[in-house]
Each structure stands twice: as C-alpha cells, then as structure tokens.
C-alpha cells in the first residue's frame, strides 16, 4: 500500500470532456476531480459509458477522436497538460506515462517481435542502447513470471497465449520506468484462471517500482485487489471516492450499494425430475475440426426439461464446440445427440424444420448476432413467420408480444435497427429472436460476459423469469462462476475437451472438488481486498505463474 504522504503526481480538477455526435457537442465527463500520489493505485469503476476510459486517456492529456477537453485542468508532476503543446505531451507518453490496453492481442503489432516493440520506447527516447534495452526487457519478463524470459520476447504476438501477452504488455509499459501507468480493463478479456496471474504480476511490479497507476475496470472484486483508493463513476460524474477497505465495507451512495449487491441474485435450485426422458442427451460425443485436431473427447451429459445446465471451463475447453455439436453445425465424429430420446441427425442440414425450431441459440456478442441492416421487427418476426407462417397483423401482434416479454416497449423498438440499441437491449432482442421460434431448449453462449454487471444481472433475471413462464431448458455456457452460482441447476465442468466433473450445483460447489474445479472456483475474485494475497500464499507464488501455460 502506498504512502499517502507522498507528493502529488497527477491532479485533475473539474475536468470536462465533450463528444461530437455528428450534430452537436454533448458532455461525456461533467467535471471530475482526481488526485493521485506517487506510487498510489487508484481504481476507476463504473458501467460502460461512465467515462472511465475517457478519464484514463485524459490523464495522458489525450482526447480521443471525436472528443475534446472543454474545461478543467490536468496537472502531471507540475506540468499543465491541457495547455501543453502536442510535442510536449508526446514526450511524456511511453516515457513517463504508459498505457496498457484491454486487448493485448489487438494492441500488439502482429508483424513485429514482442521484444522489438518493447524496446521501441527506450530506443526512441535514447534511454538505453538496443542490447541494454533487450536485457532489461528479459529482466522484466522474468519479474512478471513469463516462461522462458530469455526467449519469449523473440516470438511474435500470435505465438504466445493471451495471458502472457497481457503480461508482456505490462512489461512493455514498464520499459521506461514510467511514473504512471494507466491500465484499461487489462484482464476483462481473460479467463479467471489466467486473470489471477496477470493481476498478481501487475500488482507486484507496480509495487516493486513504486509506480502510480490508474486501474480501470467494471469488476469490483478485481479492483478491490489492486487499488488503494476506489472512485466510482456514473455517466461522467463522480459518485464517490474512498480508500478501498472503507469503500467495500461501508459504501455511502445508493448507486455504489447497488453495484455491490449485483452478485447477490440467486434463484432456487431445481432437482432433476425422476423417471423422465432427458430433453437433450449428449452421448459419448467425440468431435474434431478439419485437420484432425480432436476438440471433444467422450463428452456425455443430459439436460432435462425446464432446467438449466451450466457448462463451465476456460477458453479452449470445448464448451462452445459442444454447443456446435448439439446444434448440428459440427457433426460429431463419434457418439450422438438425443432429443426426447430420439437421435437427432448429425448435421443441421438434415434436421426437420420442427427439430430446428425446438432448439435455439443466444450468442455472446449481440453485435454480430443481429443483422445491423434489418429492422428489429423483422429480426424478431422472421422466425415466427418462418416456423408458424404468421403474416400481417398476426405477425405484428406476435412481435409486440415478444417485445413485451423481454420488457421493451414495442412501439419504441419496432422500427429501429440494432446499431441504435445499447448492449443490454441488443442482448434482449437476441433472446426475443430465440423465443420467437417457440423452442423448448435454448443454448446461451456466454450471453452475459460482454455486458456490465448491472445489465448482466437484468438479463439473468429475465432468462430466469422466461424459464419459469415458458418451461424452457437452458444450456448455459460460461466461464464466470458467479453466473453459474446464480442461475444453474446442474453444472458440467470441462477441461481440454473432456468433462472432468458434473452434478447438481449444491454438490458441485461443496468440497471435495476435482482439482480443476477447485482451481476454477478458487480463481474467482472475491470482494475481500486480501483475497489475492491469501490465495497466492496458499498456492505458492511460483505455482500460479505456470498454471496458465499448461
């Protein structure tokens, strides 16, 4: 924890930023103050659109395209950034202020080796010679516990895993030993197991070099591990700011309390009906993609009517592939899928219209799941028209009914297009499209992982209500165990294409666990600010560093 008596490094006063909508300038940040001392870590949290990233960029004196700093002052170590010239500001970036972006995979240039990108800033500022800079990079890689620190830098970005890349990016930000690093959701795109290592690495290195940091995230449990103070933002305004412990134990504002309470949603668990035929039965399925890489190995589980089965595992464990086998997009090389006891044809092309209608899918990215050039009314109306042959007034009535069902006002959304909607609204439209087919079984593929916690909770409650009203069965694919806890009846844990453990939720969340289930469960960040420290001690630090690279 940083010493609060240290001198002020960054002082933002009454910052106002406006964005251009195409017609007029509208305020994005409405007067935010921020004071950061040397070596201090501040967490910025809020939903998307709260202006977290905009403030992060402004701390570097940077306003993104289409935005402008319209008022206030940003003082970095005695230098006023709002009035400084572009070249003065540029001289700070990379050297004294560094930035770590959300997606390391998208931020590294795929055409250059990692270490060449790492040494770019030190060489540019003539701080080090090339060889010195490379040695320094290797040392940083070692401190960040990357495997083969001497060698890994000479690989290209696509040759290392996501978690390693994110750590390499943190190392890169450290290259010039900056005074301030801005972390913009550095672990949001990672699995829980990988996230831990990145968090531990970031925390250690920030501590070692006494670097100040602004840590932007929407995940409270994560920020609780990283930050000394937490600032909560809502729609460009500050809600409150307090030291981490105080903020967690005693939030003052209602909005903060509501953020804290998100994870409390939990519905009663249902038990498997006796002597019933499972609605969907996956039996001994093997599957491989072209090229012969086996991705599923002897996967079997059952889903009963009206129940939710959560399939969990890190990325690459075969969760989504299982969904592709069930929908018939990827015919299995061995085994079969039964629907109400009847085998389903392996490929969706051979399935009857009614078989297709019975199982529907909701996707992770609502952006790519809804055709941006089609009206909402047609997106939802098409399955109803296609399967039930509804036309004209009957079709419109059905669309209205579906929009009502997903809690959106029909008259307002009927004629709009997907790009005009927010993430949560788009996901609701995705749900309505699945419901329009009147299915009995819905596959939900990471439906909440692209959403803010508050919005995600709304979606989970909606799905739960629909399940009760329409007696739907869900296969819920997720890597987020908090979601599993709130909505699942049964849990299937997958790793490397195999089912490692399955059973009712209450049994699964109680020890003894399979070692992998245990790893997954213990990796879910908790609100306790000492959680990461305790966990690392329990596991032994070195062990953590390697587990991602298995």
């Amino acid at each position, binding site marked *: 924890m940083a010493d609060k008596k240290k001198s002020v490094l960054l002082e933002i006063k009454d910052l106002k930023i406006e964005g251009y909508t195409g017609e007029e300038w509208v305020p994005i940040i409405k007067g935010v103050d921020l004071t950061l001392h040397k070596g201090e870590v501040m967490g910025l949290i809020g939903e998307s659109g709260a202006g977290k990233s905009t403030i992060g960029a402004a701390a570097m004196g940077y306003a993104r*395209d*289409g935005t402008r700093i319209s008022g206030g002052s940003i003082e970095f170590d005695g230098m006023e950034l709002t009035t400084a010239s572009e070249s003065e500001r540029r001289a700070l970036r990379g050297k004294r202020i560094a930035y770590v972006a959300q997606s390391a995979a998208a931020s590294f240039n795929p055409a250059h080796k990692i270490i060449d990108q790492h040494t770019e800033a030190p060489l540019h500022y003539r701080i080090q010679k090339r060889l010195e800079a490379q040695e320094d990079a290797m040392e940083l890689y070692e401190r960040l516990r990357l495997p083969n620190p001497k060698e890994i830098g000479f690989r290209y970005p696509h040759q290392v895993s996501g978690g390693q890349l994110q750590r390499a990016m943190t190392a890169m930000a450290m290259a010039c030993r900056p005074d301030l690093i801005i972390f913009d959701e550095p672990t949001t795109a990672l699995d829980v197991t990988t996230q831990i290592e990145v968090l531990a690495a970031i925390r250690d290195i920030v501590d070692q070099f006494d670097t100040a940091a602004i840590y932007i995230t929407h995940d409270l449990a994560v920020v609780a591990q990283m930050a000394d103070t937490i600032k909560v933002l809502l729609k460009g305004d500050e809600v409150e700011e307090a030291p981490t412990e105080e903020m967690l134990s005693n939030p003052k504002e209602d909005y903060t309390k509501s953020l804290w309470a998100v994870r409390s949603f939990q519905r009663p668990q249902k038990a498997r009906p006796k002597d019933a035929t499972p609605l969907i039965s996956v039996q001994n399925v093997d599957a491989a993609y072209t090229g012969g890489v086996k991705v599923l190995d002897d996967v079997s589980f059952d889903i009963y009517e009206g129940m939710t089965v959560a399939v969990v595992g890190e990325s690459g464990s075969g969760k989504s592939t299982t969904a592709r086998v069930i*929908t*018939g*997009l990827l015919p299995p090389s061995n085994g079969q899928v039964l629907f109400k006891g009847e085998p389903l044809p392996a490929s*969706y092309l051979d*399935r009857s*219209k009614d078989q*297709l209608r019975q199982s*529907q*899918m909701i*996707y992770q*990215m609502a952006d*790519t*799941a*809804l*055709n*941006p*050039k*089609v009206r909402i009314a047609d997106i939802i109306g*098409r*399955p109803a028209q*296609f*399967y039930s042959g509804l036309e004209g007034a009957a079709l419109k009535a059905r669309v209205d009914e579906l929009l009502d069902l997903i809690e959106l006002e029909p008259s307002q959304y009927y004629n709009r297009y997907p790009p005009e909607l927010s993430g949560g609204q788009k996901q609701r439209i995705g749900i309505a*499209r699945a419901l329009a*087919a009147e299915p009995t079984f819905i596959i939900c593929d990471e439906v909440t992982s692209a959403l803010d916690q508050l919005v995600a909770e709304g979606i989970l409650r909606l799905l739960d209500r629909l399940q009760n009203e329409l007696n739907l069965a869900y296969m819920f694919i997720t890597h987020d165990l908090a979601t599993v806890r709130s909505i699942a009846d049964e849990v299937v844990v997958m790793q490397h294409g195999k089912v490692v453990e399955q059973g009712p939720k209450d049994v699964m969340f109680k020890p003894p666990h399979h070692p992998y289930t245990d790893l997954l469960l213990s990796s879910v960040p908790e609100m306790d600010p000492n959680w990461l420290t305790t966990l690392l001690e329990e596991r032994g630090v070195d062990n953590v560093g390697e587990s991602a690279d298995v």
Partner: protein
Amino acid sequence: MSVFVITYFGLLIATSCAAAYWNQRGPFLTLFSLTLVSFVLGIVGGAGALRFVAIAAGMIAFAAGISYAFREFLVLITSHNLSKEIKTAPLTASFGMFVIFTYAVAGIFAPWIAPYGESEVISSAFAPADENMLLGADQLGRDMFSRIIYGARNTVGLALLATVAAFLMGAFAGLLAATKGGWFDQVLGRIADIIMSIPSLIFALLMLSIFGPQVIVIIVAVAIIYAPRVFRLTRAVAGNVVVMDYIEAAKLRGEKTWYLIRREILPNSTAPLIAEFGLEFCFVFLLVAGLSFLGLGVQPPTADWGSMVRENATLISFGEITPLIPAAAIALLTVAVNFVVDWMLFRSSGLKEQ
C-alpha cells in the same frame, strides 16, 4: 499596362486583403501566393499568361459554383434521409454528380438536343466551327457537336449495359460462392482465375473477330472480362459477412441460400459493391472506347467517342483540337464518376474527418 492587368492585380490584392482581415488563413495564402506568382508570370509571359490564369480560375470558380448549387438543389428535392447524406458530400462529388446528370440528359434526349442527325453530312470535310456547327465538322463533313451528343447515348449506354451485365454475373456468382463454400467456391474461383489470366484486350479482340463486331458481342465479351473482378470483390466482402453469428442463426433456423443472400448478406455488402460499380464502369468505358479506337467496337456510321478520336486523329498534325473533344468527353466522365465513387468509398469505409 492595360485595363485588364490593372483589374487583375487590383482584384487579387483586394480579395487577399479581405481574406486576411476575416482571418481566412487558407484562402489568404492561396490568393496572395497567386498574386506573387502572377508578378513573375506577368513579366515572363505578358498579359496573355495572366489572361490564361484568369480564365482557368474563372472556370474552376464556375465549376465550384455549379457544384455547390447542384448540391443544394439535390438537398432540397430529395427525401429527408437522403438529403442528410448529400449534405456531407464534398464539392468534387457534387461536381461529379452534375457531370453524370448532364451526360445522362444528353444521352437520353439526344435526338432532341442534337441539331443534326448522327450520320447526316452537312458540310465539307473538317470544316471549321461556325454558327451552325458549334465544334466544326468531322472527316466526312458531319456535325461534330451532334455526334458528341449521340456518342453519349451510344458509348455510355453500351458501357453501362456491359457493366451491369458484368455485375449481375460477378456479384451473383460471388455471393453464391461465399455462401455455399467448399468445392463450389473452388470451381468458381478457378474459372475466374482462368478468365483473369487472359489479357483483356486480346480476349475482346478474339471474341470480336470470331463473332463479328456486333453490339451484343461487345457487351457479352466485356461483361465476361470484368465479371471475375466483381466476383472476387463480392466474394471477399460477403466472406466477411457469412462468418457473422446472425448468418449462423439464420442457417440454424433452416433458411434457404437465396434468403440468406437476399436478406442477410446483400444489405451488408451493398456499399462497397456500389463503389466498385462506379470504378468498374470507368474501366469498361475505357475498354469500349479503346475497342472502338481500334476499329472493332461500335461500327460506323454510329457515333461513338472512341472511333471519333480515331477518325479525326489526322487533324492533330494540323494543330486542331477537334479529335481531342471526344477524348475530353471520355476523360471528364471518368473523372466525374471517380469523384462520386471516392465519396461513396469514403462513406462506406466509415472514415470520419478528423
């Protein structure tokens, strides 16, 4: 010092002062540097050089004025959504639209606009321009102006038909290839490769020598030459769309290929396709003109810009600009179409002005 020279400099200096007074940086720099350049130009080239500069500037100003007025006109007569788009068009694009509009009017109403018939001999060969004949006569004594007007109908119409045919073939095949994939995609791709590997002019010449220089042969041959390019682009654009989840959702719903193409893929690939249409149109137009120039395209006495250049080419040696007029007509249309296409590409690429 003639009155012209005094007015010339007086006007330049006055406008640059006005620009400087109202803090118009760009116009001031242009105007004042033009003033300085004009000093040198006036000393070296005399009043004639200045007159040339004045006429050129006047023409540019005239074109800009017309473009501006035409854009405002379009904004007023179109529907709300469309006019919003047109408002963002740069002057070059509205100039392009104006030129295309003029050509379209000339082509459609050719018989009423042209003072004489297309193949009507009214004077002696290569007669100079007079009150009757705006642009003089060609090598057989036909009115050049009337033939230019008819040429708009023949050459542009032909190129348009050929482009549309190439697009129908190429786009349909491309969409189908992207949707179906697999061996079907491979077969179509290899066919496209084969056609593209034959030099286009030689292929056209071959077809025209085999089947004779008829209009339908020209259209089909040109369409076959250009279809593979459209195929490639469409397949690439549609390829990016087919991997989207909404296509997967539609496939899982059990939708047929035709529905996928029409309702899901096409609406998401129209913007680049329209831009490509403009671009291809220019190439087709030049190829058709080139074929006519070689004598294998549109046959006499039908007026056609390409063959008009060839027929009057001898006049160049006498310092006459007559053969350059149809060439200029071709150049102007090509530039105009490209202006519009640039704007459309800019829009579809989603770039915003910084």
